[in-house]
């Protein structure tokens, strides 16, 4: 901000303060400014000072000082214990027995008196014939008729509080070490001083304008607004952050992907998490001894432990497919298929369950469906693994569907997600053939971001599906991590509230 901008944006109080300081030779305490009479309250001076300091027109410096005062006057009026002792000793010719002292002084003051007499070097204490004898020293004798320096200071303090620069540090420290004698408080004095910029602004013809800060309903409704001037604000000044309610980053990116699918003519499908192994594995031609079916990869259920299968005709065909390849050209897996194994209850491990169950009920073309939903795998939790995550899966089945069409639609899909360069390489997924892996160019390097393929005839034949089923899918969280630059998957599911508050919408 230049000086002209500052000048134009000064409030009435800021102008007043600058002008007062100018009159007070460019430097004054807020109190001094207040005494000039231009301000209604002292606090207004300081407020204006802070604003001006932020603009660079003044500097506010602070000096803190210790101020001392008497805590309990009565103690001093009664005299210090050691003064009483001196008087007694003096009356005894400068030498006395402890017992003499004890006879003339309150008990609780004796030890105090002895301590200070010694510390100040006013008397010596010795033992003789089992008696404790006190002797006034030379300075003790000298002080009989003269106040000691600490007594002098106390007397001064009785007349009024004193600043630290007017008192002897050692004496005041000694007095402060005694109970209930001297009080200390810290006083901060602020000084407001014009800077060169402040002087420049004053020289530019500063005047106090009567300005309105707040536009009130009254000003509007009475028409007074026509006669007032509104103070200009410093539009660059700090405003506190506010955070709106927001959809979670995962939801936002899921919404985007759903709309890409819907725009491309796909219908969303979903199914239950709890499935018999049949739909998750057997219907997809996964052999019953496949490692993915083991307890270390898949969550099986204790309750319910098994689920009845629904469609005997389909079961029979799937069984035949596993054992001999059914009526296709396949050789099958060549083992004896076990129904019990396929009735085991599990948490689905992929959204392909949705697809195959959909094809079961909709075997005729055209089919264009998608899933964006949760799946479960037995993974220990760390920065890159979670036991549940979200899969995205797209399916096309129509007359004339082909591997080439699959690659074509994947390109289109990824382009719509913003990946301009997409390439393919062979990939292996048990229930597709041919299979492929999708790679996209992201920030200058190629990144594996999904798999795809044409469903094997062994998968589709039992359901009476006569055309190639094109399928592609990808891990959804990985996409979200790329998008939001996250390093730890767990942040998506047990999120940091500050991350949610500050995560950008675009």
């Amino acid at each position, binding site marked *: 901000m230049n000086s002209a901008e500052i000048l134009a944006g000064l409030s009435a109080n800021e102008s007043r303060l600058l002008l007062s300081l100018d009159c007070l030779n460019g430097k004054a305490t807020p109190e001094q400014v207040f005494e000039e009479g231009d301000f209604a309250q002292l606090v207004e001076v300081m407020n204006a000072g802070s604003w001006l300091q932020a603009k660079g027109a003044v500097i506010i410096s602070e000096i803190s000082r210790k101020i001392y005062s008497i805590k309990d006057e009565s103690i001093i009026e009664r005299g210090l214990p050691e003064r009483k002792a001196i008087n007694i000793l003096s009356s005894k010719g400068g030498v006395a027995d402890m017992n003499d002292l004890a006879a003339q002084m309150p008990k609780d003051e004796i030890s105090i008196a002895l301590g200070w007499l010694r510390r100040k070097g006013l008397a010596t204490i010795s033992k003789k014939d089992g008696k404790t004898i006190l002797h006034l020293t030379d300075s003790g004798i000298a002080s009989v008729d003269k106040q000691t320096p600490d007594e002098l200071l106390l007397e001064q303090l009785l007349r009024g509080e004193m600043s630290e620069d007017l008192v002897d540090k050692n004496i005041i420290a000694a007095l402060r070490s005694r109970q209930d004698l001297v009080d200390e408080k810290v006083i901060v004095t602020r000084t407001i001083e014009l800077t060169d910029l402040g002087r420049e602004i004053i020289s530019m013809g500063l005047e106090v304008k009567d300005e309105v800060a707040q536009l009130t309903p009254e000003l509007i409704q009475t028409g007074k607004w026509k006669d007032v001037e509104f103070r200009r604000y410093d539009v660059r000044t700090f405003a506190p952050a506010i955070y709106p309610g927001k959809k979670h980053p995962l939801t936002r990116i899921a919404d985007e992907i759903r709309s890409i699918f819907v725009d491309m*003519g796909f219908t969303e499908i979903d199914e239950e998490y709890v499935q018999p192994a049949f739909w998750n594995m057997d219907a997809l031609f996964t052999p019953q001894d496949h490692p993915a079916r083991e307890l270390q990869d898949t969550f099986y259920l204790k309750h319910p432990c098994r689920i009845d299968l629904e469609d005997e005709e389909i079961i029979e065909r799937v069984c035949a497919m596993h054992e001999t390849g059914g009526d296709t050209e396949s050789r099958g897996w060549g083992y004896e298929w076990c129904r019990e194994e396929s009735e085991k209850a599990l948490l689905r491990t992929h959204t392909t369950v949705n697809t195959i169950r959909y094809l079961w009920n909709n075997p005729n073309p055209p089919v264009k469906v998608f899933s964006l939903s949760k799946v479960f795998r037995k993974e220990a939790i760390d920065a890159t693994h*979670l036991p*549940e995550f979200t899969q995205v899966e797209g399916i096309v089945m129509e007359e004339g569907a082909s591997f*080439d069409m699959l690659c074509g639609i994947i390109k289109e899909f990824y382009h719509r997600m913003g990946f301009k360069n997409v390439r*393919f390489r062979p990939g292996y997924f048990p229930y597709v053939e041919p299979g492929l892996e999708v790679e996209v160019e992201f920030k200058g390097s190629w990144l594996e971001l999904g798999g795809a393929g044409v469903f*094997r005839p062994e998968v589709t034949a039992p359901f009476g599906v006569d055309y190639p089923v094109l399928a592609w899918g990808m891990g959804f969280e990985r996409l979200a991590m790329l998008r939001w630059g996250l390093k730890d998957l767990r942040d998506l599911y047990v999120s940091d*509230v500050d991350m949610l508050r500050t995560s950008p919408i675009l």
Partner: protein
Amino acid sequence: MPVVTFDIDDLMSLISHEVPVETLLERIPQLGADIHSWDSKTGELSIEFFPDRPDLYSVEGAARALRNFLKFEKGLTHYEVTESDVRLIIDDSVKDIRPYMVAGIVKDITMSDELIRSLMELQEKLHLTMGRKRAKVSIGIHDMDRISSPFTYKAVKPHSVTFIPLAMSESMDLQEILEKHEKGRDYAYILEGKDRYPLLVDNDDQILSFPPIINGTLTTVTEATTEVFIDVTGTDMDAITGALNIVSAAMAERGGKLYSVKVIDQQDMMMPDLEPKKWRINIDEANSLLGTSLDGQGMSEALEKMGYDASPDGQYLNVLAPATRLDLIHPVDVIEDIAKGFGYENFGTTLPKEVTFGELGKDQRALDASRQLMVGYGFLEVTTLMLSSPQEQFEKMRLQPVETVEILNPISEDHTCLRVSLVPSIMAVLRRNKHRDLPQRLFEVGDVMNGCKRRKHIAGAAITSRTSFTEVKSLVESIMRDMSVQYEIIPSSLTCYIEGRGANVIVDGENIGSFGELHPAVITAFELGYPITVFELDLNILTRGKLDHIA
């Protein structure tokens, strides 16, 4: 997926052509594999092969495939197997134990460091993958010097014989091996419950091995070995003959001469059988599946790059596939190799032609509407895990447990069931954020389980130094109003709330959820220290009948 590590010089010498490493790194993925790592200092190249291609798990097999794919060689590699009079007798006693064994012989082989390393790695990978940790397939390789045909594969009583197993210096009986030998302990599970164990002996009853556990020291292969006997046992005839083919072919690639073994079983077989497998591919069907318009010649060339021999025969392609390709069970498997030979970079030219109309899932409108509302109330959305535990769902919430979907093999005590309520998940998020600024207002719309079925719920929680029942009641009533639901509010007996500060929401006589001020014991159970109000409602009921129409 199995990662196999090759020495680059060994691989190059087997390819027998100079290929820049960059070319290899670029072409190998197009053959069907992931480059796992390449270290130019040690010359070690690690490749992750797909689990359907065990024929590539050795440097010899990979080099063979690359010679074809890089066009240094064309078509099928033929391996000659000379007949020998060595016999292997399969005794009936193994039929209930581990029914199958096949075997082959390799002569004139030089056991170089490279070959020994490669064979060990190949054996290990085959055991792990197609061998299903030796349960389905296990391979033994023996020096033939001190043994003589015929060999017998039989089952014997656990304590009936002793021999010195590899890595040991003293004789042990079979049961001792299972209990004391490292490999015995590792693989004893395969023979669990059997009263007899498999054994391979020679003509003089000398013990070659105790499959699938361990070989004897009698036939240890050393650098001096020139003649080996390969045995493969298992439970699946196709798998063990395939494994024998893969190991034999790898050794033939190293210059070994293959000789057959006559396996005398229910019917006699000459092994290894490396005769190519015949396939007949319909050219139109292949083009239609791939979306290509290749002629028979073009397809043949693509297949030759993938190590097949192929010749057009009218509308068909007569194909000879290597006997090491165990993944070929349907013509589509051969067709995929046409695609690879043709080049994946050439696909992606067409789009679906049928007109279809897109549509969101039936719950999406309900979820969207709820999110819009909650965001408007200033709540932040959270998305939490379905996996939970009875402690979190019931105990910490001071609620009576209900039936849940329980995991048989959970990863931890915190993830033993699927949740029935969203509020505990939101509480867990609040717990993570206990050092963040208050107030915090969070909501979730998502799945909970009702028996084995998914249901959509909406839930929210507000934690502030002063939160009140009125605040959450206003919120719930506003949601009901905005969702056009007629409802009734009655006192709740749920013990997660402070007594007298919890309410149930009733719609058409049905309890669809609750709201209120959480009991301090619930708040402290989640390690929090400020008042919290929550609500949770059944979203399926709130939106029932309202999602299907616009007007």
